[in-house]
């Protein structure tokens, strides 16, 4: 009898230990944990198919108006998300390569400009891509953390698939002085800050071309 009680007690203890050390997951939930990287990959594919249809401003016109009247430029070409002093721009155009380094390329959009106006960067941070394009929305996610993780993973994809290979390809050129870059890109500006050049632009599409303005 005593042996049975001891065995029974041991069995109960083992059962408790197993219960505490294991997490029971329904079989249909296995493999369904949220994966921001693969989610972001799908978002990127979707964004690429929608690039042509995105509402984009001409970079030359944006820069002209930013020089003349920034507030009007914000109203005409930029987007606001939530309650914010940031203005999000999607621009396209082309510019002459002024110089490049491992992190980005300086380009000049307007021939008469006194300085390079855009810096096409491979350092892609923040929510600029998702805010400017609206390709994903916070409401789509139960947890804001997941939204941010997808946004971060999307930044990495854009950096690795668009910006970095393009900058690497510049190294192979004997000279960059006659090169033009066609681009679709994004940036944000603080509404009442003076515009500081070069504006850092996140590229969504980059193409190299010869020739001038």
């Amino acid at each position, binding site marked *: 009898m005593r042996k049975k009680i001891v065995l029974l007690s041991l069995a109960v203890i083992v059962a408790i230990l197993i219960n505490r050390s294991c997490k029971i997951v329904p079989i249909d939930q296995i493999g369904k944990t949220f994966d921001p990287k693969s989610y972001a990959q799908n978002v990127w594919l979707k964004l690429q198919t929608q690039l042509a249809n995105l509402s984009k401003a001409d970079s030359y016109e944006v820069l002209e108006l930013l020089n003349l009247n920034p507030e009007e430029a914000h109203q005409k070409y930029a987007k606001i*998300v*939530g*309650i*914010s*002093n*940031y203005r999000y721009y999607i621009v396209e155009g082309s510019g002459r390569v002024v110089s490049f380094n491992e992190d980005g390329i300086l380009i000049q959009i307007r021939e008469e400009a006194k300085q390079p106006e855009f810096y096409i960067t491979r*350092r892609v*941070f*923040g*929510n600029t891509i998702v805010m400017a394009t609206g390709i994903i*929305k*916070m*409401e789509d996610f*139960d*947890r*804001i*953390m997941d939204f*941010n*993780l997808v*946004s*971060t993973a999307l*930044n990495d994809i854009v950096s690795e698939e668009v910006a970095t290979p393009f900058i690497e390809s510049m190294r192979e050129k004997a000279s960059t002085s006659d090169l033009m870059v066609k681009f679709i890109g994004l940036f944000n500006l*603080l509404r009442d800050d003076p515009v500081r050049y070069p504006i850092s632009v996140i590229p969504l599409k980059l193409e190299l071309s010869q020739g001038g303005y």
Partner: protein
Amino acid sequence: MRKFLTIVVAVAILVVGFTAFAETKGKIAVVISTLNNPWFVVLADAAKLRAQELGYEVTVFDSQNDTAKESSHFDTIIAAGFKAILFNPTDADGSIANVRRAKDAGIPVFCIDRGINARGIAISQIYSDNYYGGVLMGEYFVKFMKEKVKADKIPYAELLGILSAQPTWDRSNGFHSVVDKYKEFTMVAQQSAEFDRDTGFKVTEQILQGHPEIKAIWCGNDAMALGALMAVEAAGRKDIFIFGFDGAEDVIYAINEGRLIAATVMQFPKLMSRLAAEWADQYLRGERQFPEIVPVTVELVSRENIDKYAPYGRK
């Protein structure tokens, strides 16, 4: 004559009192995660003031960072017939059940400053874009520290907030999404100081003993940054820079005075609270179209642009 005047005054008091009572639109509850931090006091006061201006009787509840206390407040609020709740959640997951209970009782909830990890139960969640704040700070941190410390290795420490609070991780993740991409930076210590000034002081003292080589301390809020500042100054160190988050009064003054706090991220508590109170009023008057998620701007404040800012907002 005196008797007549007394009666007139008494009637006048009664009329004024009755009018004031009659004009009250009902009761609104302001539930705040903690009032043991000046930033949250500003958040609560702004919500209370705006709701009072709109004609409501307002009661502020302090959850003391305890979901059990918060739950008990919701019991009281539901039983006492409050009309709306302006809610600063203690825990993004742990507070969901409270919002659901309020919704089931027909009481609209407007989240302020922090959100909950659920959709379709709060009318609106108006909160600081903490992740972007972390990104802004990360970008400034890299630029500032590379200019100050021209070395291949820049060791730094991080003070995290309350580990169960969503802003703790949104801010930290945003910061690391930038800083971790730069090989010069090495985080040698990361510890929670629970968004608290005294704990920030104690934790920084320990970190300084274990890692005297650090050049910077990134803190997930300004209360911890002030604690870190006190510890760094007490140790006589002038080569460690501190970075905060909130835009609290003492930190804005510290940046202005050129002390060792290099920058903070400005949140706008008054803006969020006022908006939540106004939307609650509109909801109670029949409006039903509100965005469920409303990110509110955050801005980097440093020595370069301090002139634009005052404590808890812009000048």
